């Protein structure tokens, strides 16, 4: 199959169109403007709808509307804009609506910087909106994976009737890499008989809402949602391992830092330290079970590497528990760690745990 070189943001947008996305609703924010820019031209060409919304709030609620009426829809933004979308994400979970939200993360908090960041991990994996909820969060580390997960994201969203987030960082959004447009085998998905798209002979009206005024009914809804979250956790967890089998130290990282960790691990191996990398592809569900398994093996310790002050490391600690030491190295505010920084941090950490 033909390899084509694409820019990250545009590849993500094109992948969404190919996945059958029929509505894109967004608001400009750096570093993801190429997604709405691409969509503004290509979405109408493919028979879909593009609206530049008046705000991120409006954009996510347009996704809510599109999804409620049975159409595949998405929005994209970057960190501060994603904060504004949290309301809509919570409502989508509550009303059981599918949809895809792309966060091309930058430095925070507040306006922060426009350079790559990963400090929205807690927000993405714990839920930045109100209520007891979860969503699958896919975190690609290269452009091939970015386009592959877009197709999956829409399927996962439709399968569970729940929003899905694609969590990238500014570097993934801005870089160019070769990709191959693979044939996507769609999942067998339930028909959207619940959609509010006009009754057309249906015996009853469909009423999409997240409101359940009776506490008992609301609890029941929550229990139903939890059952779906459990299914997602069971079925959707993905990760990649490189040289973990004999590793003395395992670097745990997702997105761009995972690439840096891979390079660092290679250098560590060359120096005689057996390093491996575990790269979560879904950060929720997080590969806790696999990490726990590795912690029971011969590995001396785990070093989380992030572009934040330490968020994913909480998940690593939760998985590893007291079994092995867990260290952390991170840069934040838009600073991308260098390979040698990570290598040195791993060397230091290895000395401690040896």
């Amino acid at each position, binding site marked *: 199959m033909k390899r084509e070189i694409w820019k990250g943001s545009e590849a993500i947008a094109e992948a969404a169109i190919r996945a059958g996305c029929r509505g894109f609703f967004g608001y400009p924010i750096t570093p993801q403007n190429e997604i709405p820019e691409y969509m503004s031209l290509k979405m109408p060409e493919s028979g879909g709808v593009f609206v530049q919304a008046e705000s991120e709030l409006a954009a996510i609620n347009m996704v*809510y509307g599109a999804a409620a009426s049975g159409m595949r829809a998405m929005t994209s933004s970057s960190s501060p804009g994603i904060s504004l979308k949290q309301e809509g994400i919570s409502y989508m979970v509550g009303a059981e609506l599918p949809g895809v939200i792309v966060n091309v993360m930058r430095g925070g908090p507040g306006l922060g910087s426009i350079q790559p960041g990963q400090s929205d991990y807690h927000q993405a994996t714990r839920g930045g909106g109100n209520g007891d909820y979860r969503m699958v969060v896919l975190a690609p580390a290269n452009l091939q994976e970015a386009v592959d997960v877009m197709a999956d994201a829409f399927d996962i969203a439709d399968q569970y009737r729940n929003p899905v987030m694609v969590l990238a960082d500014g570097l993934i959004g801005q870089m160019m890499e070769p990709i191959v447009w693979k044939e996507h085998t769609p999942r067998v998905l339930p028909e959207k008989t619940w959609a509010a798209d006009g009754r057309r002979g249906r015996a009853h*009206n469909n009423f999409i809402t997240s409101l359940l005024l009776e506490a008992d009914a609301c609890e029941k809804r929550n229990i139903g949602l939890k059952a779906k979250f459990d299914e997602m956790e069971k079925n959707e967890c993905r990760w990649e391992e490189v040289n973990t089998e004999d590793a003395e130290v395992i670097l745990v990282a997702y997105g761009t830092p995972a690439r840096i960790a891979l390079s660092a691990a290679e250098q560590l191996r060359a120096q005689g330290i057996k390093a491996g990398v575990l790269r979560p592809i879904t950060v929720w569900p997080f590969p806790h079970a696999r990490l726990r398994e590795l912690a029971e093996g011969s590995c001396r310790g785990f070093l989380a590497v992030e572009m934040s002050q330490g968020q994913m490391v909480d998940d690593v600690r939760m998985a590893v528990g007291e079994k092995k030491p867990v260290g952390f190295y991170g840069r934040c505010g838009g600073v991308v760690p260098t390979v040698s920084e990570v290598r040195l941090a791993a060397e230091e950490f290895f000395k401690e745990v040896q």
Partner: protein
Amino acid sequence: MTTIYRKSTGLQDTELHYCPGCSHGTVHKLVAEVLEEMNAVDTSICICPVGCAVLAGNYFACDTIEAAHGRAPAVATAVKRLHPDQPVFTYQGDGDLASIGAAEIVHAAMRGEKFTTIFINNAIYGMTGGQMAPTTLIGQRATTAPLGRTVEQAGSPIRMAEMLSTLDGLVYAERVCVTDIPHLNKAKKAIRKAFQKQMAGEGFTFIEVIAACPTNWGMDIVEANQWLMEHMAAYYPLGVIKDKEAE
């Protein structure tokens, strides 16, 4: 046996939860009748608000989507664009539309989105218990303006129909009320006209209903309707605010 009255097929056979004297039930009925008469119950999609009409999907017979507070016009934008041949309307109160959702309604109107908004202006937050709305009149008491709204504290009430009419995307705006049969008939005519213009693809259409909330106004039903005609209609003049075709 002759049928002299039946409920519109635009409504489900459910009991409304609205308070006695509240205008919501009447407006629901008018919208439902228009949908039925236009043979559109089966195709229409309603976007209902946060506020007293939050459960409108339990009453309207058409498919309904409950939106987050103020966001109904954003939700409706996507629904209408993806289902351009189907009637779409938002049904919103004054807190929802004129306060928290001010941006959404302004921009939907600016874009000339081809849906209809039914705006229930009763000058108060009903569901949360009588707090001041952006449409609360000067001197009117509310639980967050216990001594009455003052210009110094809260500015002057907002006239949404007039404000939105400055936007080219809005093709038709009329302010109506449902206090008596002649007004009710006019209101229904206005609602029908809005839906017709929507389906003709002319642009955004807006019906503002100045409505009674006897419960939160602390009045009986007769008093409330009198107060509405005396005070609200004085500040919010009834009639066509904009009709692009007629201009």
